[in-house]
């Protein structure tokens, strides 16, 4: 150590404060090369930690402790960066130009419009997302003196030799494999991400250079680094290309930590996620308006090293020896006994030595910094206050280091070094991993081609990608369950999912088949939305009172031809009831159906007609009673739908479209049965029996069409709202269980929306086939517990409270607090994906137009019907005018 260094150490001025800023020579995938050093860079995957139970959290943290061991002996740099989800990046990820085997589909433009609208909305909401980069120093390069010598001899080749680049990239891959197996699941950082991380530090809106063979070097790299930073005493000013300030920032050092750092409660880096400034500030913005609360979006930059065990032992032992020497020295003199600090230090050092020797812990030496950026000084101060207050609550001191902003800011740059070493900390590994830097909220598909349905609302916000048919495509379970109280957004979410299926980028030329069975009559908006976005749609209203619907669900027309006769026979027997008449007259029904089946156009009503002929030729009163009963039952109401004489029957759609089957009142007419019990058809009245027959006809149609040869290989989905009405019946439960078990094999997905979590959870076959759950707010504790269990969360008070408050509206504006108490938050739920990750998610419809169209409220429906009537009248008028015009022309001719 030179005299200068010794003097610096005495005065607390150690470190490379005067070192030149890092001069980048090349940026490659997972690699930054500066004059001084080469660093490997990885992106740390965000663990979904918000809703983890305590045991799971502890296990996760233990795994992180182990993961730190992989970095032993290496310098590393952890860097958190806030960015915004960009619509154009989203669109690029969807890969709308990709073509499947069957080429481009006809609705190409509709798909583009649909996804472009989503991309525009993402740009509008500007969702902040966090990227965490982990840098590991691979090796030192030429020192300053060696560079000078080389330069003097004209040998300073600024290009990185290809051999060196290859060697470094191999090292990046090798280390990446090791780190990928840890809890952080790192992947090699993309060149663009690294370039962005450097460019954004300079607050310049410059276009990122396009890497040449994945490497950025030379002039593009020089342009990337162009920028000017003015270090003021307690902050930094970034100048834009026009020489005007483009932003300000301040670097805070975490100067003091409590003796013990515990989780939960002291997650000292995760605390930066979702931090907001106080809304009570009196400061005004440039327009003279109150500034209000704003997101702080502070970024962490932690440089550190995990000493190898021998070095760690030596370090702690040196401290123990010093403390011991101090104790003895004090005991010899007048002081008598040493300071408490000395005694405590000796005890702690001894204990730590033991723990290190037993490999119960590791030692970590870190230099944590927090970078706070803002548009102006007032915002900056408000944000700094928010950060300091958050840390104060944890017993951690965050200090704006005056007169060292330049050095601290340079430290945060990728590929730099520790310039201010005297503010570092020695900690046990669990005190560092208590930071939970990799924690956040992440759920849903990781496939960039899957469309987004909303965003997570936990500590970090990220896109939630979901496609109802994705699970089946990967051979997983087919059922998607949406549960929750009424008017919480389940049906709207279901409609959004269906539209996404119809317009999914992953259809690759395969036209999907989707059916929505709407018994409540509030999902009619999807037909209008489909028309708006050019999705082929077949809305069909099956009304029990409409004459035109007679014979609509005739078993001969809705079932597989091989089993049609059986279906019709069962339906007619069901309509007959289960009393004496049914038992005695069963064989008449069988004969009549057999006659009808042989006709060129077999129909159920022809079976009843055949029954009439049998009754005429028979002296048996039973035959006449059976005929009369069936005629009476099928003359009106639900019975007419399955065995009425067809009048103006509309063909049931069997092609690849979105079919909206509106069957108002059907589910409500079904006989109820408690789960696990069966009610006897003897107890059913005629209307209930007819409703069950209709339901069987409807479900039979769904099953038949879904299994049709023409639809093989296409994405298929059945959506059923208000499933709690269906699960209350034996037939409904049987159908759901059967489809759940067999659906995946047939490539059929099911979206079920229910208010009764227990109903679904109690059906083992169905519950086992659920691949995704969207749990909306529940009011009763038993349902909350069921939901917690379904989404894989621990049934503790915290989870129940989260479920209960999912529909609590939170206003950003304090002034609107009174009003917000009356509002209900819709579309907010807990989503458990097929990898059993659960997080709170907010569904988001991309446009106001779609919100209006899919609105299921009574007022919206009324408005929609009025609108439809008005349009129909308009159409009629136009057609009338055209006819008139035609007549005029005809007259003229």
């Amino acid at each position, binding site marked *: 150590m030179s005299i200068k260094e010794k003097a610096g150490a005495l005065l607390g001025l150690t470190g490379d404060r005067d070192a030149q800023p890092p001069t980048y020579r090349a940026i490659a995938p997972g690699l930054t090369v500066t004059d001084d050093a080469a660093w490997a860079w990885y992106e740390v995957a965000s663990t979904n930690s918000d809703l983890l139970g305590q*045991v799971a959290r502890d296990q996760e943290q233990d795994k992180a402790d182990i993961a730190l061991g992989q970095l032993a002996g290496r310098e590393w740099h952890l860097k958190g960066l806030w960015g915004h989800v960009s619509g154009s990046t989203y669109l690029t990820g969807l890969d709308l130009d990709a073509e499947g085997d069957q080429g481009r589909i006809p609705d190409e433009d509709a798909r583009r419009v649909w996804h472009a609208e989503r991309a525009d909305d993402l740009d509008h909401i500007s969702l902040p997302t966090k990227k965490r980069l982990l840098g590991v120093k691979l090796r030192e390069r030429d020192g300053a003196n060696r560079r000078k010598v080389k330069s003097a001899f004209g040998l300073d080749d600024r290009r990185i030799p290809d051999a060196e680049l290859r060697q470094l990239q191999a090292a990046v891959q090798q280390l990446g494999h090791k780190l990928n197996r840890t809890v952080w699941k790192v992947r090699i950082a993309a060149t663009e991400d690294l370039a962005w991380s450097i460019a954004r530090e300079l607050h310049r809106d410059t276009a990122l250079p396009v890497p040449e063979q994945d490497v950025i070097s030379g002039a593009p790299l020089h342009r990337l680094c162009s920028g000017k930073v003015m*270090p003021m005493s307690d902050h930094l000013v970034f100048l834009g290309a026009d020489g005007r300030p483009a932003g300000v920032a301040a670097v805070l050092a975490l100067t003091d930590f409590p003796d013990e750092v515990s989780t939960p409660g002291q997650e000292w880096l995760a605390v930066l996620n979702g931090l907001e400034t106080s809304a009570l500030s009196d400061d005004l913005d440039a327009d003279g308006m109150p500034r209000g609360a704003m997101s702080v979006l502070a970024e962490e930059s932690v440089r550190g090293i995990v000493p190898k065990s021998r070095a760690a032992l030596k370090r702690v032992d040196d401290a123990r020896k010093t403390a011991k020497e101090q104790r003895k020295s004090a005991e010899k003199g007048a002081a008598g006994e040493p300071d408490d600090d000395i005694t405590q230090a000796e005890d702690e050092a001894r204990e730590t030595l033991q723990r290190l020797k037993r490999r119960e812990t590791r030692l970590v030496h870190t230099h944590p910094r927090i970078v706070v950026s803002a548009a102006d*000084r007032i915002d900056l101060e408000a944000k700094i206050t928010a950060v300091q207050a958050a840390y104060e609550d944890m017993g951690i001191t965050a200090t704006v280091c005056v007169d060292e902003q330049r050095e601290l800011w340079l430290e945060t740059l990728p590929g730099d070094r520790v310039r201010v070493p005297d503010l570092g900390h020695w900690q046990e590994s669990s005190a560092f991993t208590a930071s939970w830097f990799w924690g956040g909220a992440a759920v849903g598909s990781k496939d960039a081609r899957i469309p987004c349905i909303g965003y997570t609302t936990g500590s970090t916000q990220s896109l939630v990608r979901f496609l109802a048919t994705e699970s089946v495509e990967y051979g997983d379970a087919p059922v998607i369950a949406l549960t929750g109280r009424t008017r919480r957004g389940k049906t709207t979410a279901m409609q959004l999912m269906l539209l996404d299926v119809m317009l999914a980028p992953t259809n690759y030329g395969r036209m999907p088949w989707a059916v929505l069975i709407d018994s409540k009559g509030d999902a009619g908006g999807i037909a209008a939305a489909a028309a708006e976005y050019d999705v082929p749609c077949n809305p069909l209203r099956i009304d029990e009172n409409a004459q035109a619907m007679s014979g609509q669900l005739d078993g001969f027309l809705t079932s597989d031809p091989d089993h049609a006769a059986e279906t019709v026979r069962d339906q007619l027997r069901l309509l007959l009831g289960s009393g004496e008449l049914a038992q005695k007259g069963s064989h008449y029904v069988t004969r009549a159906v057999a006659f009808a089946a042989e006709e060129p156009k077999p129909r159920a009503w022809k079976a009843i007609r055949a029954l009439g002929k049998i009754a005429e030729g028979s002296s048996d009163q039973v035959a006449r009673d059976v005929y009369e009963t069936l005629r009476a039952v099928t003359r009106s109401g639900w019975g007419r739908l399955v065995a009425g004489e067809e009048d103006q029957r509309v063909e049931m759609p069997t092609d690849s479209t979105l079919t909206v089957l509106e069957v108002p009142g059907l589910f409500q007419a079904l006989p109820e049965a408690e789960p696990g019990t069966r009610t006897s058809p003897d107890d059913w009245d005629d209307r209930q029996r007819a409703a069950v027959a209709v339901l069987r006809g409807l479900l039979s149609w769904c099953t038949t069409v879904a299994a049709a040869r023409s639809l093989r290989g296409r994405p298929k989905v059945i959506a059923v709202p208000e499933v709690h009405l269906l699960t209350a019946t034996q037939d409904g439960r049987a159908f759901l269980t059967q489809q759940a078990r067999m659906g995946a094999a047939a490539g059929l997905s099911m979206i079920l929306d229910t208010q009764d979590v227990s109903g679904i959870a109690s059906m083992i076959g169905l519950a086992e086939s659920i691949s995704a759950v969207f749990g909306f707010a529940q009011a009763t504790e038993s349902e909350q517990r069921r939901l917690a269990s379904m989404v894989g969360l621990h049934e503790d008070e915290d989870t129940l409270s989260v479920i209960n408050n999912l529909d609590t509206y939170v206003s950003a504006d304090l002034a609107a607090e009174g009003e917000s108490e009356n509002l209900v938050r819709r579309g907010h739920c807990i989503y458990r994906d097929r990898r059993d990750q659960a997080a709170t998610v907010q569904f988001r419809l991309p446009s106001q137009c779609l919100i209006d169209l899919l609105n299921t409220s009574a007022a919206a429906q009324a408005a929609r019907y009025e609108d439809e009537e008005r349009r129909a009248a308009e159409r009629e008028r136009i057609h009338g005018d055209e006819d008139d015009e035609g007549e005029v022309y005809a007259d003229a001719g």
Partner: protein
Amino acid sequence: MSRTGRTLTRTIEIEPRQHDLFGMDLGEGPLRGQLVFGMLCFAVWLAITLPPSFLFGSGPSPNSALWFLAPPAALTVLGWRRTDENPRRRKVTQGLLALRYVISGHEPIVTMGRHVARSDAVRLRDRVAGRFGKGDLLALADPTRLHKAPTKQRQARPRGNPRVTFRPVARTYGTDYTARVVQQERRHKARPPRRHAKKEKAA
């Protein structure tokens, strides 16, 4: 269940005290670092003050003891105290950092290490005033402050380099001119090099 980890900074970076010096018991004793710093302060102070006192007077006397002892003693005691803002730092360190900032630590970072022109640097007034939050750049970075004081004096000039504007002037050349240039060039190529011409002349 929870996880707890300990911070060992104070344990590892323990500050030893000197309990005795040359056989003299110092009781609780000063911090060793402070002791060394004090000795350095005395040495430097005496090196500065003693030669002039011998040169212009009769050397140190009991009356002037305060002059020779008080400043380094005060600096040792007060300078070794920790600052209120950052308890990890001593006042002397923070003072030296402040001095460093005014002299060299304010240097702007231009294109990651480009040589900084004098005009690029933060002005001395700003370096000092900026410490109290009143620098021009601060006002510039804060539109509301500019709003409150829109006078010309308060509006600081941007410290970036002035914008460079190019004004290309298009000239038109006729065919006569270009033909003449081409002819000149041909003649120039045909002519032998001048050095040879001289030799020929000499011959």
